[in-house]
């Protein structure tokens, strides 16, 4: 691996400038597509991979809840065409790095899985609107399942910086599939794990856990991602206790930047059902407006 810093001009930044007739000199890209360099890439378990890339300052300025669109390499015999959305799992503005935690699912993520340290990956971001952490909240609860844990992960760090306490309720099929528990612990968060194999992940049990956290004054707001069943539990409780909440939604994407309207979902805004683009109006939405 090269020891020099990677001055990989983003495509956008490169083309925005020189030789542009009628170009506005003051314009600057805030979303870039660039060739980032793979710094580390490791299997977390049989399904999940942790990928760290070196990137531009713009990309490394990504915030929790935002996401990137990755142009995945082609695995043998498959040709993913579209970019794939991946939540920010971690960002280091000083090191110019961003991290992803992804599950190997189909052609695109199988392509990602072929990346080796030193390879280049075309990343585009940061995209979408992230989580909003009100500094007045003393404690929040993050409820996630599956890849949703990756999306919630960077909250732990930001919350810690804000002095906000985090309790994470993590759901998975089996204990060995729980990811980013250590990351949460390292930021001083409490983690409550529930799993299908231990029969602890049912909505009733999660509701019981959440009610206790509310009762203990450990929940000024809900943050959730990755399970509509668990989202519904939180919606009920948020309603009952008048708590705010935010949910990060998923939807298939083409452009990732609000152009194509392929990623719309229904939202309930004051009783009216409206379409919103997950990539542009979200991916983080008000918990009470989200529909499963």
């Amino acid at each position, binding site marked *: 691996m090269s020891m020099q810093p990677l001055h990989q001009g983003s495509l956008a930044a*490169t083309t925005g400038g020189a030789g542009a007739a009628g170009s506005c000199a003051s314009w600057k890209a805030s979303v870039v*597509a660039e060739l980032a360099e793979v710094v580390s890439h490791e299997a977390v378990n049989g399904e999940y991979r942790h990928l760290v890339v070196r990137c531009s300052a713009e990309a490394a300025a990504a915030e929790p809840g935002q996401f990137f669109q990755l142009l995945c390499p082609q695995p043998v015999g498959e040709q993913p065409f579209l970019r794939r959305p991946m939540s920010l799992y971690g960002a280091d503005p000083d090191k110019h790095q961003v991290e992803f935690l992804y599950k190997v699912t189909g052609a695109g993520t199988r392509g990602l899985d072929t990346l080796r340290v030193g390879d280049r990956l075309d990343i585009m971001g940061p995209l979408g609107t992230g989580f909003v952490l009100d500094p007045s909240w003393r404690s929040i609860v993050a409820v996630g399942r599956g890849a949703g844990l990756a999306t919630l992960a960077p909250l732990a760090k930001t919350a810690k910086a804000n002095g906000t306490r985090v309790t994470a309720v993590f759901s998975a099929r089996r204990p060995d599939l729980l990811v980013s528990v250590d990351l949460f612990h390292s930021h001083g968060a409490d983690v409550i794990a529930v799993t299908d194999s231990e029969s602890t992940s049912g909505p009733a049990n999660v509701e019981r856990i959440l009610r206790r956290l509310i009762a203990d004054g450990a929940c000024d707001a809900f943050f959730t991602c990755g399970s509509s069943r668990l989202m519904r539990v939180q919606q009920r409780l948020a309603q009952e206790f008048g708590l705010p909440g935010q949910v990060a939604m998923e939807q298939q994407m083409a*452009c990732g930047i609000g152009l*194509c309207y392929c990623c719309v979902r229904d939202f309930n805004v004051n009783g009216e059902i409206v379409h919103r683009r997950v990539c542009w109006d979200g991916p983080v939405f008000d918990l009470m407006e989200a529909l499963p």
Partner: protein
Amino acid sequence: MNPVMNAVAHAAPDVDLSVSIGGLKLRNPVMPASGTFAEGLEKVMDFNRLGAFVTKTITRELRAGNPLPRVVERPGSLINAIGIPSKGVRYFVEQTMPHYAAYDTPLVVSISAPTAEGFASLAAELSIPGIAAIEANISCPNIEEDGKAFAMRAESTEKVTRQLREATKLPLWVKLTPNTGDVPEVARAAEAAGADAVVVANTILSMAIDLKTFKPCLGNIMGGLSGPAIKPIVLRQVFQCAKAVKIPVIGCGGISTAEDAVEYMLAGASAVQVGTATFLQPAAMTTIIDGLRSFCLHREIPRITDLIRGVVIEEADEPDLAWLDPVS
């Protein structure tokens, strides 16, 4: 030699990238394809560099768009059945237009309606300051003629174009469908009825089936194919249309690189629209603009217009009947 002369002599020769589309002068021939462009791209590129803005197709009434899933990928291509989710014309004028007013780039509004009259009244309503041209997306079902898209037939194209022409003095671009058997004939009908340009073309009707569920991959069952895979087909249609009409042809289909744009201009396009490529490389349009300049510099072509219809056909090669289906 005086210092000014000297500076001029040493400056890199510049290329004139400007083109004129039916009276509308564009700083360069590169613009987005309808439905693949919105304010979000402002975060990626300087909007003052584009040849024009082309909006997502709007309709008079509110529309929800198609059921999900709305896209499915295939090798080198995308199939979409977004439909035309539209917040209606008032929303467009009041909320969307002001956004583009900040830029020195002509705004082309894509419109659609189920009847010729609907097209005309929408065009009339949109003939207002701030709109530089109307692009009529006539690849939509014509409810007066058993639901076939207007652009499937020369007659319905002529009818809707004529009514549009009477309704607006703005430059009128008519966007054709590649799904008909005789695109040049349809282009001729649009020209005859007063169109200032034709856009060739919309997406190619396609389908994909999910082998797990045996269900169509798209909520709408069928959708439109776009991206690199369709380039050779649409390029052929642009070539045929440029031979058939005198008005400018705007090429659109699978353009991802400056080379693709050059190929389209050689085939007869006066300008190009970039759609799906933006989904893969959000700065595709500005990269293409830079690439066109480099191409011309490199080949010592002073004006980009010199490329238009520049394909070299040797007389002896000109085939006759075998054209229609050379494999036959």
